[in-house]
């Protein structure tokens, strides 16, 4: 009679990495729905392409490493990477954009470093930055909110546009991005940035139709939807509050100071919070545990760095939004943050 030998503890909480990852991509669903409401059905096609690419890449790597192809999806981390990247890119971008970005994220950023848990950089954001610096035109051609567009796109139109660059009626993406007045529209942050550089004041710049509803048409609600999903993750204890709080504080505090001193030529803290990729970045991207700092204190500092960098790049940098760059830069700082934020262990002077 022999019995099973196992190391203690013998009890386990029933929450697996797979479940953690599932919560993350379930929590972005409100954001995806709002996204499609304002920017059309493109997001679904991008998600499909991203997931397909991610699966093929994962399966190929598993194969090369001599593991079962079926284990490719096992921990669902590749799904999270694919979903986040698909949400981040302009939803009518050509099909090869998302394919290149996802393949780079999975193959190079994740697996070349050793796979899940070993990568130094956030895969989705490294993929995004690769695309942004390589294909700046495609990566900044955001569709205008449907509420402001002349033409409404069907699913077939969207597919045609993504796969060939032209809608069924023969319109190019560039033509479709024109507003009712025929002028191509940029995202709120891009538009504001350009206008400020043209010596307009913030108040004047905010007169454009893209700022029609609060924090820009579509973008405000999109950020609210990501905020909602993020709060669900915190409530479910999938993420801790330290990183999102750090990001939002690191962004808001300097932005508010700057805005108080120079309201005519700066982005208001409100617009900072509710536009661009702020909420997506704070709750879904910066919170990637693999590439974040280790201790809670370190994570708060990590968040602060990201928030401050977003504010700095948006204000003085060369790009309208900055979450991807900020996250990658903070990733680089993680070893230093970890070194100086190791918590005081029991019996090492805390309460002796």
């Amino acid at each position: 009679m022999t019995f099973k030998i196992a190391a203690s503890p013998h009890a386990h909480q029933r929450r697996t990495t797979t479940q953690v990852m599932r919560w993350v991509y379930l929590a972005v669903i409100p954001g995806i729905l709002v996204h499609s409401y304002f920017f059309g059905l493109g997001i679904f096609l991008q998600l499909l392409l991203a997931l397909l690419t991610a699966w093929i890449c994962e399966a190929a790597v598993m194969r090369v490493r001599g593991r079962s192809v079926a284990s490719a999806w096992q921990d669902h981390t590749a799904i999270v990477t694919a979903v986040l990247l698909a949400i981040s890119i302009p939803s009518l971008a050509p099909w090869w954009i998302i394919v290149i970005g996802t393949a780079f994220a999975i193959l190079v950023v994740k697996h070349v470093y050793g796979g899940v848990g070993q990568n130094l950089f956030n895969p989705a954001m490294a993929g995004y930055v690769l695309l942004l610096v390589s294909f700046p035109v495609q990566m900044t051609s955001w569709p205008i909110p449907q509420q402001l567009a002349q033409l409404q796109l069907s699913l077939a139109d969207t597919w045609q546009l993504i796969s060939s660059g032209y809608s069924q009626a023969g319109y190019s993406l560039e033509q479709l991005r024109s507003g009712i007045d025929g002028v191509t529209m940029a995202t709120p942050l891009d538009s504001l940035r350009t206008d400020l550089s043209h010596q307009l004041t913030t108040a004047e710049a905010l007169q454009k139709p893209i700022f029609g509803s609060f924090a820009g048409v579509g973008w405000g609600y999109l950020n609210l939807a990501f905020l909602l999903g993020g709060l669900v993750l915190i409530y479910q204890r999938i993420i801790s509050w330290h990183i999102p709080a750090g990001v939002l504080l690191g962004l808001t505090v300097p932005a508010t100071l700057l805005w108080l001193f120079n309201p005519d030529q700066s982005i208001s803290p409100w617009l900072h919070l509710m536009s661009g990729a702020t909420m997506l970045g704070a709750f879904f991207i910066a919170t990637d545990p693999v590439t974040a700092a280790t201790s809670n204190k370190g994570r708060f500092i990590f968040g602060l760095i990201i928030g401050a960098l977003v504010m700095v790049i948006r204000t003085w940098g060369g790009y309208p939004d900055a979450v991807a760059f900020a996250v990658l830069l903070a990733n680089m700082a993680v070893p230093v943050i970890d070194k100086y934020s190791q918590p005081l262990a029991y019996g090492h002077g805390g309460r002796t």
Partner: protein
Amino acid sequence: MSAINISAIEAGQLWSFHGGIHPPERKQLSNQTPIQTLPLSKTFVVPVKQHSGNSGEILVAVGDDVRAGQPLTQPGLQRGLPVHAPTSGTVLAIDEQPIAHPSGLTDLTITLAADGQDAWYPTTPCPDYQQLSRAELLERIQAAGIAGLGGAGFPSAQKLALQRPLEYLIINGVECEPYITADDRLMREHAAEIISGTEILMQVSGCNKALIAIEENKPEAIAIFTQLLSERAATASRIALRQVPVKYPSGGEKQLIEILTGRQVPSRGLPIDVGLLMHNVGTAFAIHQAIVLGIPLIQRVVTVTGEQVDKPGNYWVRLGTPVADLLAYAGFHETTGKAAQRVIMGGPMMGFALANLQVPVVKITNCLLLPSTTELAPAQQEMNCIRCGACADVCPAQLLPQQLQWLAKAKDYDGLEQQNLFDCIECGACAYVCPSEIPLVHYYRKAKAEIRNIAREKAKAEIARERFEARQERLEREKQERLERHRQAAEARKAAQAEAVAAGADNPQDAVQAAIARAKARKAAQAAAAAKANDSAEGESS
């Protein structure tokens, strides 16, 4: 180090410790019925070492008849603890047998065939122990073979022998590990004896204040202690009850100290360094038995629980009883199916799995857990760490378990020391919450063992080096001494000669000088003869 905050402690304030978890307690399974007495087994296997430290010297031989409570070993010079015969019978064998240890290794044991009489060895009860001196009490506690019954099995007399100023004696009745109810039932049924044991401990340690800590999930035990203390005003002025909130691992020594006093035991230090001493309720009971009744430690309460047992509950089990006998009595039936049955000695968090059931119950056996595969699912395949940090949030030692895990896998021993690996208490909270099902504690144990090994090897190498250097030094010293001896001998000889010359004897130097003079004279004569011969030859030729 500042003094502990006595006034806040006296006011009943409780503190909290970092982290902790709330696993399903499952204590109702075994705490509903009174403690039953397990019928005597036919044979007993008594390991000679059942505590942390060294074993004693064996006093019996094969074939000897022994009685219940008779010492089988005596503490040797190495600060061991004796073990006692669990019942009367004959010594069958003294040999190596498998013991209850995670390694499954064997150790020296004394096998006893019970005669069924359960005749007792004479005891020396001492109800008026107040008359005994500290040394006498310590001696009796030692002779009764009492080791900490909470889990570590450290000899209690040794712990009590340290003489340092104490603020509080803490009696630990927290029993925070799921499933286990041995202390719970003991407190419900033997509260008076535990209080008596506490008073003995206070007398021995010279401490006049004690705290009895019980977790809030044991309302019956709390009620009994509250009642007993309220009935005895004199005792209640010295012993106070504290209800500790339910959280694992509140019963860990360091964690309980933080809860009750708001202080932390310094790293690598002892509770006594902050003026505290902690004993388990089971130990307090055993000390009462040993001093007041004179009965040595030959039985303990063992919880037998889990869904694979028909009669879960608590049992008085004589030490040395084979686990198989206890499980058969409690109605254990093995799970069938693909996943193998686990037999866990201890609780689900810190217990270890037994490979076979012939191992005996020993002093630190508080529980046998026979889970079904649905209540405690077997471990899943380990996945990669995603650094989610859930482990750090629950770590009661405030470590970073995921960092330790990476470093342990990389065998970065310096990094592990820097991350305070040795402050890990192996409570298992990190592995419990890990979503990737990484057996974290296993990695830490392995790393600790490797570091200890390296230290041991280093110490050995150091000794070898010292011996080599000592030898080199000795050889050099001997050489110098030899040369010195030669020099001295030469000088002595010269001095003796000089003395002899002065006394009128022939100076050997004179003989040498004379010989030299003779040789010079001979050379001069030869030279002169040669010159003469030349002169005459030249004369003849010219």
